[in-house]
């Protein structure tokens, strides 16, 4: 193919336009979070804040117990990620390396689980948590997030481990590293992109989970950000500026996290989707 300069300019133009489309709503979020509440009631709406109310980002911490909600989100997402990985890694590794009775059944179970979403099962989950006396606890949220992200992690890690030649591990084993040594020193380091993809996927879907938290939690100090944020705008109040200030506080760290691992992400998805 000829690489004409016209083509390059065109590609760049389209590329930046696409980027703008994807970022535009969040830019709007940012601009809204800097307007005064009075300006937000104006019709038609304004493009840029008439007065850049930077103090919204300070006041929001006093307007609602965001810090508590943020801590809940963080604990739930972090612990759920650890639990998921701790369960998924051995299972994915073992099924990728060994042929044994029940292997097919296990992989089928994972596949079927992938088809269930918490949304579809929310009634069952709620009734289970009532039975276990776990309603309104972080434990319930951790368990649900860990379990429902497990299939994706097993699937992606299984693909990744399968793609690593067994001989590599055997060589390390013969060099006297031991089975586990070979696993930790050879296989895991090579699988980093897969592991990172699994970690990020789980963390983000737990960080953003909404329906189960909405259903299972009741006390404000046990609600994650996703459940707390909409209460800024109700029949009685419309603090859109606080709603979006909080949203940005929740979104920005995750976007930065994502940007750092973008390179690994493609590798991780490749192994998962091609194998």
């Amino acid at each position, binding site marked *: 193919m000829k690489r004409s300069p016209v083509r390059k300019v065109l590609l760049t133009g389209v590329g930046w336009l696409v980027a703008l489309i994807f970022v535009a*709503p969040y830019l709007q979020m940012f601009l809204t979070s800097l307007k005064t509440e009075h300006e937000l009631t104006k019709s038609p709406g304004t493009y840029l804040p008439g007065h850049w109310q930077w103090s919204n980002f300070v006041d929001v911490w006093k307007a609602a117990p965001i810090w508590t909600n943020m801590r809940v989100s963080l604990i739930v997402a972090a612990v759920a990620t650890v639990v998921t990985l701790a369960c998924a890694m051995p299972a994915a590794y073992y099924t990728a390396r060994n042929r044994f009775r029940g292997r097919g059944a296990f992989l089928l179970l994972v596949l079927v689980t992938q088809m269930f979403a918490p949304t579809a099962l929310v009634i069952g989950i709620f009734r289970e948590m009532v039975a276990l006396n776990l309603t309104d606890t972080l434990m319930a949220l951790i368990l649900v997030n860990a379990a429902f992200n497990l299939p994706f992690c097993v699937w992606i890690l299984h693909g990744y481990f399968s793609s690593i030649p067994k001989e590599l591990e055997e060589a390390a084993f013969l060099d006297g590293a031991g089975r586990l040594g070979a696993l930790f020193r050879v296989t895991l380091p090579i699988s980093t992109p897969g592991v990172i993809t699994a970690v990020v996927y789980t963390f983000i879907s737990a960080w953003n989970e909404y329906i189960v938290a909405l259903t299972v939690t009741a006390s404000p100090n046990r609600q994650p950000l996703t459940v707390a944020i909409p209460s800024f705008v109700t029949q009685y109040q419309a603090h859109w500026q606080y709603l979006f200030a909080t949203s940005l506080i929740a979104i920005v760290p995750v976007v930065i996290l994502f940007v750092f691992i973008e390179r690994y992400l493609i590798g991780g998805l490749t192994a998962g989707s091609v194998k």
Partner: protein
Amino acid sequence: MKRDAGFRPASRPSLLRRIGRALVPLLWLGPSIVLIAVVVLWPVIEMVRTSLLKISSSGVTLGNRGSANYTDLFDEDALVPVVLRTLLWVAGIVVVTMVLSLAIGQLLNARFPGRRVVRWAVIVPWAASVLMTALIWKWMLDNYSGIVNRVLLDLHVIDKPVNWLGHPHQAMIWMMWVAVFVSLPFTSFVILAGLQSIPGDVYEAARVDGAGAFRTYFGITLPLLRPAVLIASIINVINVFNSFPIIWAMTAGGPGHATDTTTTFMYKLAFYDQHVGESAAMAVVNFVLILVMVLVYLRATRWREEVR
């Protein structure tokens, strides 16, 4: 059982060892199986059971109802429109998402200055919670102060503000757009990953054969992307079917049931109308629908392969 007692001492440890060997996989798979059994399968069973029970508004079981929850559900006037709307919702969103993602994946794979930044930009809606994205779209579509009305007024496309989310049809189209918007990042990256796994010499060969860009794409790229497209669309079907926050945040399924899908309809039945059993019946029907759609999709794609 053997008369020859001499075998016994030898066979016993070997039997134990055989049992032991059969149990080794459980050591590795156990945690996953327990987690899935307790947190996924239990609610599934509980849901099916609940769909056959009579449950008071406070959650107390009042006895069996047989199939009465199902007949109640099928007697709901809203059910048929809600199911049809859900099918349209899933099909529309998944098709548009796949087509756009094939283009965006191609773009992200091409070389141009600033590609990194464009890739980061495309990731943003994935990193942001769907709920928050739905809320900003709701605000942008606001009747009085929304930016969408402002832009369209300034461009003289409309002459007075439109209450976009007040009319079921418009609301549906906007919400489907938001669903496409949040599905694009993951899907585009799966496509991008698929594109990067195609070896360069395949294209080399096509060029030597004198194939044009169009033929190269449809003859080589698209068929080789098949696994990526297949997986991305199945995951999208499941996700979109179960999508709750977008509709919940933007219209809550209203006015009435005019913008409900099966998911929001199910949620309202349980937590607004307090018909827990009927809601569980809806969930069971919902799951059967997903299963049928995924099977039909798998069937259709395999069928195409056989034809080719």
